[in-house]
């Protein structure tokens, strides 16, 4: 616990800039994972406990594609689309069977897949840490912002996430497809009676949610070490994000993710041992005071 370190950081603009960017990076990756989680929950009503493993798969797919082709664009496509395809199969073959039954079965199917995917990754890529390194296109001198230095790749990551957040919002709120998806979330029977293939909607939403997780993994691969089991901690943090922002609310996930990202980066200076505690405390307070979350529509109780 060192509040003076935090105070001296706030006194220097360069430190504030550095910490804010690193907070935004954490927040951006967290948002992508949490947005998929919350989207799937909002429409299908299930919590995808394997979401963290999807993030891990995205990172590994991207790593392999990058090693094979040397193109970062291909790596991102491989991570995002590969995981989307996997998510679609996972939903249509396994998850679909347990929608009607209780939470216990959903939990067990996810538990099984977390175990299996962790081992498959170990089998295929080995148990050791992989590091992809920042792609050549971003190997340039860091950009100087208000006295602080920001690596170019960080700016790309933040920008890409902002574009995706905007695109999600436009699709969900402004298009006919978005309307159908929201209708299926609120009343699937009625939507189905109006001639919408809700099964296809469910599969598509699950695939998009998985795509976001895979994309987050692919974007994280250059800046994080890629290892089996890397998905679990981001899963827990995206739970916290979705609870704070409101389950089923994509804009809530954005607010929650940025909040957690900034708490993490500034907290690591001022109170490194209490960062986790503060995240959980924030979640507990939200649950007691406003169980539906900051921007959620559905009550948790």
């Amino acid at each position, binding site marked *: 616990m060192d509040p003076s370190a935090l105070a001296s950081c706030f006194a220097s603009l360069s430190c504030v800039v550095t910490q804010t960017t690193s907070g935004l990076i954490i927040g951006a990756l967290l948002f992508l994972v949490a947005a998929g989680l919350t989207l799937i*929950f909002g429409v299908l*009503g*299930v*919590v995808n*406990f394997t979401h963290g493993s999807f993030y891990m798969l995205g990172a590994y797919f991207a790593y392999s594609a990058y090693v094979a082709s040397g193109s970062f664009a291909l790596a991102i496509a491989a991570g995002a689309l590969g995981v989307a395809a996997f998510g679609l199969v996972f939903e249509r073959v*396994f998850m679909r*069977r*347990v929608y009607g*039954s*209780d*939470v*216990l*079965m959903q*939990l*067990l*199917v996810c*538990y*099984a*897949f*977390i*175990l*299996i995917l*962790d*081992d*498959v990754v*170990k*089998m295929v890529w080995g148990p050791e840490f992989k590091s992809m390194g920042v792609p050549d296109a971003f190997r340039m001198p860091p950009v100087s912002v208000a006295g602080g230095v920001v690596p170019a790749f960080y700016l790309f990551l933040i920008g890409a996430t902002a574009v995706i957040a905007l695109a999600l919002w436009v699709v969900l709120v402004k298009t006919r497809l978005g309307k159908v998806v929201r209708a299926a979330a609120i009343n699937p029977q009625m939507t189905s009676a109006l001639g919408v293939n809700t099964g296809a909607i469910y599969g598509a939403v699950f695939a998009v949610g998985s795509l976001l997780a895979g994309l987050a993994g692919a974007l994280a691969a250059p800046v994080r070490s890629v290892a089996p089991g890397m998905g*679990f*901690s981001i899963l*827990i943090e995206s*739970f*916290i994000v979705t*609870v704070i922002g409101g*389950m089923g609310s994509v804009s809530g996930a954005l607010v929650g993710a940025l909040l957690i990202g900034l708490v993490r980066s500034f907290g690591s200076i001022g109170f490194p*041992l209490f960062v*986790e*505690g503060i995240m*959980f405390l924030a*979640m*507990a307070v939200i*649950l*007691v005071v406003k*169980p539906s979350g900051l921007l959620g529509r559905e*009550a*948790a*109780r």
Partner: protein
Amino acid sequence: MSARGDAMSTPGASPRGRVRRAASSGRDLLVAAAGLAVLVVLPFVFSSPLLLDFMIRLAAFAIYATSLNILIGYGGMVSFGHGMFFGAGAYSFALLMQKTGVSIPVAIVGSVAYCAVLALVVGVICVRLKEIYFSFLTLAFQMLVHSVIISWVTLTGGDQGLTGGIPRPPFLGIDLGEPRPMYWFAATVAVLCLLAMRHLMQSPFGYTLRMVRDNAERAQFLGIQVARIRLAAFVIAGCFGGIGGMLMALFVSGAFPEFAYWTTSGEAVFMILMGGAARFLGPATGAVMLLLLSDLITRFTEFHGIVLGVTVLVFALVFRRGVTDFIAQALGRSRAA
């Protein structure tokens, strides 16, 4: 689970019910006494130390899985964070023994009290939540406990675990440093804990809990304080889960972060599915099966997760029921717990 009972009446409310309840609790006592007798004699028949070690681990996991079934099977609350109590019990017991030098029974009482407080704090936040929120919040709190264990290195030894051994001072003439007394102690604790949980689940409290599971709204209208019943179940389950962890800590003479990791919770949930949530002894049966399976897998492959995961999928998607459900069906009984 599929075989949820519709037993809404509370035995003990009517004179006839009271008689039936007395008879059934007498039968439970007999079963427990017979089970304990068999377990006590076991080392005289088979003297393999491997068997005794297996049985001690089984004792710990049978208590632990059965305690989780108080929540899942009887309470309809699918906790995915029960490992936090297994870990909390193990660490608090180990630390009490290492740092304070109290006797084993005192450390057990202190450690149960610690688990009760932890369960109370987590429970107050979680029990009011909807099913799925409950699942992932219990998981999240478990990971908080896990990260506290990992980061508080000076107290817990961090990711190396709490090593240095747990002293086993003899008490009441029992020396747990010897393998056989350790086994007898574990077996006795397991039988007593299972009996106590059985008794609680057959009590009016147990039937109120089933009623809350089946129809919380109706229970509310009948004047039952639903949240309070759930919280009580959560605390009871936490205490017994902690006792499972204590036995494990005593056995391995240490405590390790994996005890509080999510895989430990997952194992308990899977034991319940494998054995069957609808019968009291289902989870203990599942514990036997999963421990055997785990030992078997480790012998043949290093990819433990794949084999275990596929087994989980088969049980969850194909069988959809536990072994005790099949046995009961074969015996032609459809009575639910």
